[in-house]
């Protein structure tokens, strides 16, 4: 078969739509999905802000109960508050961000890739640096404050849980970034004739 014939087969579908759209259901889905997307982002951002504030707040309460903390607890408070602040700033930036529909496919891929690279480096930093440091400081602070041993055990278990989630998140971002890299390579490569 020559290509012209393939083209005729392709064109034959233009006057015969392959699906029927249920318009009313589509309208409802679009409005509902739009609302849901905003809600999901909102909830995850608030969870991060709240967790940072709560964790920092708990250490402050411990310090107050002990009539003052130690250097490790102060640093841990600052780090947890930084997480909350970071999440708050990210939320503000998301709200300001305008969806850019002017991009080409390559532009869209590059944009997605730059976000993916950022997420990979951020999650790597969180997994290997930020979380271990914050938990180590908090743990040292707990040990030095003469709290019962189960405080430290609970805190340790919490660290294991967060590390597991953080590692899983990092792997997801790496997979996504690698997928995008392959797509970009495929799009921009100059094929050999």
């Amino acid at each position: 078969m020559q290509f012209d014939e393939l083209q005729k087969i392709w064109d034959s579908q233009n006057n015969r739509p392959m699906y029927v759209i249920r318009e009313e259901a589509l309208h409802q889905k679009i409005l509902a999905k739009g609302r849901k997307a905003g809600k999901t982002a909102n909830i995850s951002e608030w969870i991060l802000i709240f967790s940072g504030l709560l964790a920092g707040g708990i250490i402050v309460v411990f310090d107050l109960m002990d009539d003052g903390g130690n250097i490790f607890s102060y640093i841990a408070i600052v780090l947890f508050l930084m997480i909350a602040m970071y999440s708050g700033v990210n939320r503000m930036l998301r709200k300001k961000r305008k969806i850019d529909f002017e991009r080409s496919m390559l532009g869209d891929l590059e944009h997605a890739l730059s976000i993916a690279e950022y997420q990979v480096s951020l999650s790597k930093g969180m997994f290997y640096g930020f979380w271990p440091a914050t938990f180590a400081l908090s743990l040292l602070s707990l040990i030095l404050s003469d709290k019962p041993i189960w405080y430290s055990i609970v805190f340790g278990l919490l660290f294991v849980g967060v590390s597991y989630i953080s590692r899983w998140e990092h792997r997801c971002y790496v997979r996504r970034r690698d997928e995008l890299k392959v797509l970009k390579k495929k799009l921009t490569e100059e094929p050999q004739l």
Partner: protein
Amino acid sequence: MDNKKQLDIFDLWINEFKPLLFKVVRAYAFTSNDQDDLFQEISIQIWRSIPNFKEKSKVSTWLYRVALNVALNWKRKHKKHEEGRQSLQHVEHILEHSEEEIDERLDWLYHEITKLDKIDRSITLLMLDGFSYKEMAEILGISESNIGVKIHRIKKHLTEQSQKPEHHAI
């Protein structure tokens, strides 16, 4: 832009350009559930894109750009349905297959297109829908010469596939 105006434009675009959207859906999603899901994702992005449309390009070019970008990044969120964790009866479908007679040759062509990688699928759809190299370069963001080479290769591949003995019935 108020909601009423946005909805009017949306309905107009969806009705006028549904064949274009269906082609993208069929080339990138294979099961009925996935086709429905991808169509919804594309529709949502089209809806959101309406206030940004400045009439610098044709509506068809704009819609192809939005639809292909969504298709390329689309994830199968409803995989759980296929795995049987949730009953399919509870999934509300937007698309229903029309009662038109199935064209086996068109089915075969779609089958061949879905065997291509994601990028080549986009190029094939644009090529078959008669977009110029310039328009394709604008949608894809790569040079016209690169597109020319890729199209040459795709045309050759599809023609060769159609000439294989097992496809003589087509």
